[in-house]
């Protein structure tokens, strides 16, 4: 069997250094790379730490375009074959920084893209934010979210068993979604148009 390759982008919206959000993102990434390897796929991982783009994102909201640094980060995500997106939960939802990053992407940029969602918070009482906030966000973007989303409360980093199993299950789901989909070939808006101008003129 020939070796296939896929790119895996990781978006982490943690604010601390070190950050438990990044810690969860790293665990999900390692498990997904392993799950892809078991399916004969070599993954290239690229991590986007949103903290480093906090000012870039505010600028983009105001100017309407990403600066060079943010453009590279956005291209990393929109050009990937799969995405791991992890946010801290603030005030019952994803963090503003996390949302802003997805706000400035083109609304079609993640269409059909496999996504594994993760979130962290101080207590498990925030865990359903994954289902009531992140899952609708990725549904709107028409991304394909893995059925298992992984939440890690502070207590999960001590207790054995549950978190590791959820990570492994979610990583397997993301790997299946990525393996079942051809490598990403993002549409270039400057390719010759598929709709001819005569068709546009005819109102079609």
């Amino acid at each position, binding site marked *: 069997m020939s070796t296939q390759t896929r790119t895996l982008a990781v978006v982490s919206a943690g604010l601390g250094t070190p950050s438990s959000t990044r810690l969860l993102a790293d665990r999900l990434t390692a498990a997904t790379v392993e799950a892809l390897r078991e399916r004969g796929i070599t993954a290239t991982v690229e991590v986007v730490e949103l903290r480093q783009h906090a000012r870039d994102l505010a600028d983009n*909201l*105001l100017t309407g375009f990403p600066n060079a640094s943010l453009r590279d980060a956005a291209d990393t995500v929109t050009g990937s074959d799969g995405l791991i997106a992890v946010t801290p939960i603030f005030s019952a939802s994803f963090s503003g920084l996390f949302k802003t990053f997805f706000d400035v992407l083109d609304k079609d940029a993640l269409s059909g893209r496999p996504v594994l969602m993760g979130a962290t918070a101080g207590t498990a009482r925030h865990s359903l934010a994954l289902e009531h906030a992140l899952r609708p966000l990725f549904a709107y973007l028409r991304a394909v979210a893995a059925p298992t989303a992984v939440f890690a409360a502070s207590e999960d980093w001590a207790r054995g068993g549950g978190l590791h199993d959820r990570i492994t299950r979610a990583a397997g789901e993301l790997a299946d979604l990525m393996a079942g989909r051809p490598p990403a070939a993002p549409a270039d808006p400057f390719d010759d148009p598929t709709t001819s101008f005569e068709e546009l003129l005819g*109102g079609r």
Partner: protein
Amino acid sequence: MQFGIFSVSDVTPDPTTGRTPTEAERIKAMVAIALKAEEVGLDVFATGEHHNPPFVMSSPTTYLGYIAAKTSTLQLSTATTLITTNDPVKIAEDYALLQHLADGRVDLMMGRGNTGPVYPWFGQDIRTGIELAVENYALLRRLWREDVVDWEGRFRTPLQGFTATPRPLDGVPPFVWHGSIRSPQIAEQAAYYGDGFFSNHIFWPKEHTQKMVEFYRRRFEHYGHGSADQAIVGLGGQVFMRRNSQDAVKEFRPYFDVAPVYGHGPSLEEFTSETPLTVGSPQQVIERTLGFRDYVGDYQRQLFLIDHAGLPLKTVLEQLDLLGEEVVPVLRKEFAALKPAHVPDAPTHASLVAARRAAPQAAVQAGTEVQAR
């Protein structure tokens, strides 16, 4: 190559004094600026069109008609004319009349407009912006080229036996540019008709402008109007100058920092490096502007934005002095020396009339072909 300025007609408080000009002051300032543009030897003045505060320019042909009467060489243009929310019949009539009054010094730049509520205020839907631009412009072309038009479309009430008056000066419609910041479909439209394409070139990085212009040039050639390097390209640009570049930075920064579009965001230095904005000496503006050619090729029209963000009239007129005395004469000479002979100048009324006289049969055939579409 044509050099000029374009205005968005914003009424913005001067952040250094806190004073907001009245609409009357701003309108008269726009007159002074256009007249000064001709006086210092610029070629083009283009005005935006807006239907909401804080902008004053709701009626460009009223304004341009007044400017036409007060000037004799200045090319009068728009940046942009709203092809989506204006009735194409009124555009055909208004600009045909203006062209007569201006003795052929008028061209237009079509744009869609990006102010959401303007669409419903004029009975349209922003989600059909591209379709509106395509249908309305196709009708506008016919109204200028066919004496009697029967037409039925999706967005406007049908026309039977309609003649737009006055007929275009010398039977030649005004040259049209199409402006778009980010929609390849509009570059495609410009290429399809062999019209000009104007890239805003203010708000986005140069890489974006480069992609849009490359696409337009490639499609212009595809549609058989000439080679890609013969396509008609215009660029925006934004400058603020003082003889000493540090003075320019110091004086412009308070305006930049709170400017309506990009204020409170990136620093002046960041925005200058990310976009074509140049704040510095006339020599720096010359060098930066000559560099535009490196990524869009030889182009036909350069318009600068100089009168926005609350800058006082006196300052704007000083900018025009620097443009006219120190910047444009050098740019004119340098660009002309670089341009190959087969690259055309921007079409003017005179050149379009001459081209029609030179090839009357071809013009008639082309007209027939357009009607058949």
